[in-house]
């Protein structure tokens, strides 16, 4: 493995997280529980798609074989996507959307804050922008988790169920494979192992404030770093790639 190959994979994985979560959130456009929330979720979605564009462009530039960020976004098969399983989970009820947002945005806030120190100038520059944006996503998710958890019996029950359902996808966020390890040694990648304790602390603080129980770590789903996904990704791609498959090279 060369630094170039590893950097390509690393940027691709980060870009895929943003792309797939951006698409998931865009499904809520016009379906938010209230107008302000509709705007909030789609604003977050837009941030994600902007982030995906920046990261996938960097992946394409690194690969340097003529592909653009659009080729990368729309022309891969399912097993060549490397987003975390968490971000492809369905929106479900509003509690599930918020639970997913809480787990991923706290992780991303901690992750991108560390990535700012990367020796890779491009990743560091993108990370500095992302950190500013993801702070808002995290605050949004924290507010709603507390509001729903410490709300009515019904909202409390649903929020607890959602956290429990999403929990088994959180273990994967802290896995280090050979790409992570190689780039960590190069001073490029984030060491995910020490991040886990910080993440658990923050999540537990929020859940406690929301009168919710932090789930015990049980069986954790895994596979995305090898391109193994839940059945949900295929459904997302069939919609997301429809236009490029039906009308190849279509432009706005």
């Amino acid at each position, binding site marked *: 493995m060369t630094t170039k190959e590893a950097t390509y994979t690393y940027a691709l994985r980060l870009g895929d997280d943003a792309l797939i979560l951006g698409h998931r959130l865009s499904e809520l456009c016009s379906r938010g529980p209230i107008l302000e929330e509709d705007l909030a979720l789609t*604003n977050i979605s*837009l941030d994600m798609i902007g982030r995906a564009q*920046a990261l996938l462009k960097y992946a394409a530039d690194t690969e340097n074989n003529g592909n653009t960020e659009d080729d990368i976004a729309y022309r891969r098969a399912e097993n060549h996507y490397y987003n975390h399983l968490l971000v492809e989970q369905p929106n479900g009820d509003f509690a599930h959307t918020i639970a997913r947002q809480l787990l991923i945005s706290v992780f991303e806030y901690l992750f991108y804050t560390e990535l700012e120190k990367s020796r890779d100038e491009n990743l560091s520059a993108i990370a*500095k*922008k992302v950190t500013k944006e993801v702070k*808002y996503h995290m605050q949004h998710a924290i507010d709603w988790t507390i509001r729903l958890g410490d709300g009515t019996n019904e909202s409390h029950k649903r929020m607890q169920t959602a956290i429990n359902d999403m929990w088994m996808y959180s273990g994967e966020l802290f896995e280090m494979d050979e790409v992570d390890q190689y780039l960590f040694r190069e001073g490029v990648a984030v060491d995910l192992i020490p991040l886990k304790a910080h993440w658990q602390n923050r999540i537990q603080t929020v859940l406690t404030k929301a009168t919710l129980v932090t789930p015990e770590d049980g069986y954790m789903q895994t596979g995305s770093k090898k391109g193994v996904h839940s059945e949900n990704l295929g459904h997302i791609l069939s919609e997301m790639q429809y236009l490029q498959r039906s009308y190849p090279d279509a432009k706005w």
Partner: protein
Amino acid sequence: MVDTELYPDQVYDLISVIPDPEIPVITIKDLGILRAVRIEDEEYIVTITPTYTACPAMGMIEDQIKEILSERGIKKVKVELTYSPAWTTDWLSYEAKIKLKQYGIAPPNHSSCSHMFDASEKVICPRCNSKQTELISRFGSTACKALYKCNSCKETFDLFKCH
């Protein structure tokens, strides 16, 4: 004078008047989107930076830069996007903040954004200057704004978020 002999500073001045597509009372220079102009291989390279990574106005700004320069006979233009240094509301000039307020958008309060967005923070209504305002949503009509309401004049307004 042949236009291709324009100094980068002159090109900068020509395009600095372009208004922001979403907040037309301030220019891309006021906002800090326009970063620099240089010449490389007989081509003008214009560097711009997005306010937010997904700022949908970037494509439009690029087109307008090329259009204005094309009218002056300058065809060799490349617009480059940079993410570093990351855009910040610290770059908004005092004049730009006044213009925002007159337009009905509360300008960002702080010059430093290291703190978390604080919902209890006092935001002054751009219409009636009341401090009796409250946050409706952290996410307003565009990524860079939050939605507030004024309990004195009963109007809603946007806050340009500290970033």
